[in-house]
Structures are given as structure tokens and as C-alpha cells.
């Protein structure tokens, strides 16, 4: 792992709920340096935690040993914005099937995670395919 530039922080976190706190704190720290407001940061913390929680809940099947269940989190300071990438090397999924599951909403088995990510950031992109891991890219602009 090597940061793309001198304003990116990269983290490798074990894929366990225990470390969601660390993901949120790192997001806060970079967010402050990126000039985000406290409200922006509150929103982005939830979006980042949703993406990380998805990795923990969905990315790993039994074939992946615990020691290889990792979350790769990249936090980049841009011009009046911050970009977050949440990546895993897990089972992947078909992002096109998402829209269907969104309709279930909270009542069904899911879909709320991506809904919150979309609402709480300014841009959301999901790169995934069955068998090839997942990358979620979110941009949060500084309001002010």
C-alpha cells in the first residue's frame, strides 16, 4: 500500500466491528485537516462506518481466514473536499442488484447502508463484482 500523494492517509483495519471506532476517528482527523465542518464530519463518519460495516457483514465467507479479513481505508484531502475509499478483497457482489434491494428498505433485509452513504455524501461510487472484492468511493465537500 503506498499513498497516491502527500495528502492521503491509508489504513489497514482488521475486518471486525471492534475497529469501526478507529475508522471513524481517522475520518474525523483527516476531515478536520480537509476543512470539513463538524456537521460534515458527523455525516462522513456514518457513511464510512456504513461501508466498513458492510465489509464486516458481507465481504467474507468461510473460505477467508480471519487473518485475511481486512478493510482498506483511504482518506484523501482534496480542494475543499475529502475523498474516502473503502476496499475489501472479499466475495464481492453485483452493484446492479442494489437498486432492487433498496426497495425493501428498512423493512426487508437491508439496503439502508447504501441509502445513508448516498444521502450523507456528495458522491458515491460502488465498484464490485462477485468474486473480485469491493471498493466504495465517496466524496464529501466542505460546506462553508
Amino acid at each position: 500500500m503506498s499513498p497516491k500523494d502527500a495528502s492521503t492517509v491509508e489504513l489497514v483495519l482488521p475486518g471486525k466491528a471492534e475497529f469501526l471506532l478507529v475508522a471513524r476517528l481517522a475520518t474525523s482527523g483527516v476531515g478536520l485537516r480537509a476543512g470539513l465542518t463538524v456537521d460534515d464530519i458527523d455525516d462522513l463518519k456514518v457513511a464510512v462506518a456504513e461501508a466498513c460495516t458492510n465489509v464486516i457483514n458481507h465481504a467474507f465467507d468461510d473460505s477467508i481466514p480471519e487473518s485475511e479479513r481486512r478493510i482498506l481505508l483511504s482518506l484523501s484531502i482534496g480542494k475543499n473536499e475529502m475523498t474516502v475509499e473503502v476496499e475489501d478483497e472479499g466475495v464481492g457482489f453485483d452493484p446492479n442488484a442494489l437498486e432492487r434491494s433498496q426497495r425493501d428498505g428498512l423493512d426487508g433485509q437491508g439496503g439502508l447502508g447504501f441509502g445513508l452513504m448516498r444521502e450523507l455524501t456528495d458522491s458515491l461510487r460502488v465498484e464490485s463484482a462477485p468474486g473480485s472484492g469491493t471498493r466504495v468511493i465517496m466524496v464529501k465537500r466542505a460546506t462553508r
Partner: protein
Amino acid sequence: MKIRAEQLDERMAVSHVAGELDAYTAPDLRDALEAHLQQGTAWIIADLTSLTYLDSTGLGILVGTAKKCRQAGGDLAVACNRKNLLRIFQISGTHEILNVVETVEAARERLEALRAQREERTDGEATS
């Protein structure tokens, strides 16, 4: 996250929740709410006025508990006054079904009102 249980009357209780509610701490909240239901308390207030963080995992537990409360003849209300958390209730569309109000007092009033309605309806059915 810290949770303290308070029994208001035979059928109504509060879980006072402080700190951060995420996928790591959520099981503790689920257990605490489940304990109320197990004890026959189906009217539950989740006091989140000292909660600083909430995401979909916490929402899922609150929505699931609200359903169980209703199945048991009661309901759930949430006390919450922090802007960042209220935004989460709003954009997830759970503000109404979770009876989100600003204070524990207001939550209690909300549940008392629902209970009164429920009893009226039952009385009505019984006498009709």
C-alpha cells in the same frame, strides 16, 4: 456505550443509552431491550439524549424492537435531541415509526397516549 435500565411502571421502561452505538456496541443494546420484553415490558423508551453516534446497525435494532413491542401490545419511542442523530432518523425514514421526540418526558407522554388509544379501542371492541 453505557446502558442503564429504569422501570417506570409495570409495563413501561426506559433504556438510557450513552456513548456510541455501532455494530460493535449494538449487541449490548439489543440485549438490554430484549430484557425489557422478556420481563413483560412492551412499552419501551430508548433514551438516546446522551448518545453521540448512531448508524444503520443501531437503527435496525430500534426498528426490530419497535416491531416486537407492537406484537406484544406495546410500542417503542425514542428520545433524541442531537442534530446529527436526528438527521439519521430523518433520512432513513424511521423518524415516524420510531416515535422520535426530543425528551424522555415527551417519549413517555407519547407512549401513554398510544396506550390510552389502544385501551379505548380494545374497550370499544369489547362493548360493541
